């Protein structure tokens, strides 16, 4: 941990700078000076210059909830990605690859189709279907030879199944009332985030991250493989279940609030491993930090690039897919797809 203090300090600085940038950038430009003015006056509790009222409104009710949501969702997807990679002993798995994301997306869409947008129902349904998806993927993978390749392939199968389910629901959905929200889920965006969404997602993601953080060291022996972990005294089945349930829970909370944003859970933990190694003592908190920063950068790009806002999921896929291709090509040498 000690030797990574510098990299943590630097990353925190980058995150702080990104947050500041994300707060001022956008179609409604807030001057850097205005940002400090608004923040200072909220700390002082004094009156704000009336000319800053518009900036203040945008900052407090639009930018801040969105920035917080992006950072927390990025952290949640990255940490669960790191956890899933270690559980399945492969740097190429992620909540997306294992079908968790599409399962949760299906659950959210289904709840929206029948329960018309009760946020709690959407969240519960996303969680339940996310768990069903990862269980299915694990079961099919185990029966298909219990290799990493079979696990990844069964994740592809499960993802295809739930994506078909989402397509079907979209086809049957009311094109004016329901369809736009469903499209939004399949692409992923922080566009419509308000405080209520942010708080709701946080109330699940933060405790989930705390649990994974507290139990982080046990992922070291677990990532050695089931047998070795058992010999070191770990009840692997029970531990694996806890990690999968908590990891799925925070992914489901992310998907419910901002849709299925792919690739972050694969790319970020992998970059984190390259930077700080695979000791989970360091890797888990660093994945959270890096993931939050990465997602915030992606979201800020998504809403400030010329030509109007694009869904952030499109952007992460544009970046993630080539990165995955790179891992596949170079991973052959490192034995990434072997067992």
């Amino acid at each position, binding site marked *: 941990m000690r030797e990574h203090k510098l990299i943590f300090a630097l990353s925190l600085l980058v995150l702080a700078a990104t947050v500041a940038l994300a707060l001022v950038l956008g179609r409604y430009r807030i001057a850097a000076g205005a940002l400090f003015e608004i923040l200072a006056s909220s700390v002082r509790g004094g009156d704000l210059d009336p000319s800053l009222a518009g900036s203040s409104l945008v900052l407090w009710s639009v930018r801040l909830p969105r920035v917080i949501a992006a950072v927390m969702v990025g952290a949640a997807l990255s940490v669960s990605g790191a956890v899933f*990679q*270690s559980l399945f*002993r*492969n*740097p190429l798995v992620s909540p997306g690859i294992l079908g968790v994301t599409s399962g949760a997306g299906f659950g959210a869409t289904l709840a929206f189709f029948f329960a018309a947008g009760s946020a709690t129902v959407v969240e519960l349904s996303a969680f339940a279907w996310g768990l069903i998806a990862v269980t299915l993927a694990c079961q099919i993978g185990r029966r298909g030879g219990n290799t990493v390749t079979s696990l990844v392939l069964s994740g592809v199968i499960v993802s295809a199944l739930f994506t078909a389910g989402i397509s079907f629901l979209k086809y049957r959905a009311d094109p004016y009332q329901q369809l736009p929200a469903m499209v939004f889920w399949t692409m992923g965006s922080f566009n419509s985030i308000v405080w209520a969404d942010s708080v709701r997602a946080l109330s699940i993601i933060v405790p989930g991250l705390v649990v994974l953080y*507290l*139990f982080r*060291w*046990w992922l*070291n*022996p677990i*990532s*050695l*493989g089931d*047998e*070795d972990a*058992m*010999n*070191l*005294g*770990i*009840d*692997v089945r029970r531990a694996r279940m806890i990690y999968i349930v908590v990891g799925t829970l925070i992914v489901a909370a992310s998907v419910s609030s901002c849709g299925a944003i792919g690739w972050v859970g694969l790319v970020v933990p992998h970059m984190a*491993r390259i930077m700080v*190694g*695979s*000791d989970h*003592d360091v890797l888990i908190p660093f994945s959270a930090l890096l993931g939050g920063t990465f997602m915030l950068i992606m979201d800020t790009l998504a809403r400030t690039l010329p030509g109007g806002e694009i869904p952030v999921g499109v952007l992460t896929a544009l970046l993630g897919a080539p990165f995955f291709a790179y891992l596949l090509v170079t991973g052959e040498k490192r*034995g990434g797809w072997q067992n």
Partner: protein
Amino acid sequence: MKGLAHGMGSLLAVDDIVFDYRDKPVLHGITFKVERGSLCGLLGPNASGKTTLLKCINGVLKPRQGHVRVNGENVGAMTRREVARLMAVVPQQMSLAFSFTALQMVVMGRASRLGALSLPSSRDRDEARAAMEELGVEDLAERQFNELSGGEKQLALLARAIFQETPLLLLDEPTSHLDFRNQYRIMDVVSEMTRAKGLSTLVTLHDPNLAARYCTHLVLLREGRLHRSGTREAVFERKTLEEVYGMEVFVQPIPGGPSLVLPGRGVAAL
């Protein structure tokens, strides 16, 4: 009651273990004991069930019948944590999916003594380093485990097992991927640790000459059955070895040293 009947001398008692793999019988009722302080070699040709037996002993595989007892206590009824405080396992050649340093690997030997929410302390790390020092491999501490040579990996894993601080040590073919010199280096260390720490050690071996040189006791398996067990002096003789390996052998006593096994002119149809 049965535990008492095994007597004071033996730490590990394997009692009538039967194991099937997908309805195919692999072990047919294996019974033997490992005496306290002994270095017991588990010998037998490929597919004789050595590794399976080891996995039944450490509880990774559940035998269909029979019991494994340590200090008279049934291993089958223990939690993984309890088992890990009684026996440490040095697995066969392993390579990691993720990169850990050798020291991080050794520290994991502490897992069974850590609280669920605690992390290894700096004291744990110091002690892990001390365990590496005992085996003379402290200079490997900061190296990546995956980049170590076969012999160095085995020594690091052995340090981890020592650090686990268990009375029983199980090794699964620790010499199988090693060159001539490293085979003897590893077995020297195993033998020395067994003696110095008063451990009871069970080790599967391919090479009967290594067994002859280091083991105090031998257990010979053949086609999933116990062929013979006992002290090396009692068991290590030509006829028994010929029956176990299914080939003609010569046993050549060396003055002042262990016997040497040499293959005969051809594989006999025994």
